[in-house]
């Protein structure tokens, strides 16, 4: 079984493995990572619908030569709260972490209220605070509109 998996996704020398992504969310994860910003020597491997004991099915994303920023982690926790992140250096896992909901989510989502002051060209970043943890509900700190549907409000 292990051999089969290795064939699906090649090991990377340096970079990040995002595992346990809810099935079907891999492409959204790529969007968060902003592939255009990556160097041309970065290989990105995506596995969709991989069998998982924990999730039934899951997606996996591996990105060479990239380590995630705090902003990536905040966004991941909104759309892939089950994700685990492994930092790979010289083919070895150097650090492993799960994503955790931060107290404030800044600059990642756009407010769903088109008339919110954060959507009308002011020199400010969108900002949300956690209104509820289950289900995760964020509240715009400006207009107080609540958001639960994060996928549709991710900044492009």
């Amino acid at each position, binding site marked *: 079984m292990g051999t089969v998996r290795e064939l699906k996704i090649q090991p990377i020398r340096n970079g990040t493995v995002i595992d346990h992504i809810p099935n079907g969310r891999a492409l959204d994860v790529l969007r968060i990572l902003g592939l255009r910003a990556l160097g041309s020597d970065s290989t990105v491997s995506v596995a969709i619908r991989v069998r998982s004991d924990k999730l039934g099915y899951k997606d996996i994303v591996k990105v060479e030569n990239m380590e995630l920023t705090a902003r990536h982690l905040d966004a991941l926790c909104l759309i892939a709260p089950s994700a685990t992140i492994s930092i790979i250096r010289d083919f070895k896992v150097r650090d492993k972490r799960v994503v955790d909901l931060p107290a404030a989510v800044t600059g990642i989502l756009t*407010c769903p*209220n088109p*008339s*919110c*002051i*954060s959507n*009308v*060209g*002011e*020199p*400010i970043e969108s900002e949300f605070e956690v209104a509820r943890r289950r289900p995760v509900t964020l509240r*715009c*700190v*400006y*207009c*107080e*509109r*609540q958001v639960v549907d994060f996928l549709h409000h991710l900044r492009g």
Partner: protein
Amino acid sequence: MSLKGRDIVSIRDLSREEIDEILAAARRMIPYAEGTRSSGSLSGRIVVLAFFEPSTRTRLSFDAAAQRLGGRSLTIADASESSLRKGESLNDTIRMLAHYGDAIVLRHPNEGAARLAAMVSDRPVLNAGDGAGQHPTQTLVDLATIRESFGTLAGLRIVLLGDLRHGRTVHSLARALAIYGSAIRTVSPPGLSLPPEVAEQVVELGGEIQEEASLAKAVRDADVLYVTRLQKERFLDPAEYAQVAGSYRVDAAALQGARDRLVVMHPLPRTGEIAPELDATPRAAYFRQAFLAVPVRMALLGLVLNGKVP
């Protein structure tokens, strides 16, 4: 606990104790608002009234409040005469205004504008209405009116009637009433009911809320009937507005089954929702409500600028 230097952006920012403090201060301000006592406690202070959306009573009552306490005001009463029109950001406008006065009272068409202003201003910001968002000083006026009528805010039955979807005053009011443990009943035309998140908040705060189809049934054992107008300017589709225009009206006949103590409130301006025949009856609390705007706003200015009122 002091409100000195505080921003008043949303009723959510205020604890029950702070609301009580503001209402108690407002009660003490009544003779000053009536002009039977005078005070110079805001002498030398400038209140900036930055109104980027039309308003008559909110702006004038803040102006009256500042002047009754010996303060002065600077007014932007029309967005077209301001630098916002020239493309300046609110962010920059507020930074500038914070240098001109000691407190900023802001009305703005975009939701969240007052929060942004409070973040960038080192002077207290009082939200006088941000789009369809918050209007906390109106809520305080409403609470002051109810408390004056019944001596309490707890254990009352309050009916909210009208455009509960767009009416910003009822959103904040529902929340505040929940904090005090009053029961809310809502009556609204189709499609204009209270947004679910507001109803959820009321329940989370331990309040009771129930939707009622019949106004006659809703007012039967109620203490307050709070009426709002259709917020015509917030309808995106004129056809949708035409469908509900004139769909509710409160007159003597509509209140026949109500208790004697029931009072009718309205944040004004009214556009036909309340028949003038009620004006001269003891039920009409809306003109008193309009007057109480002055002492409540005097209390707020006194508390955020001086930490106290005379």
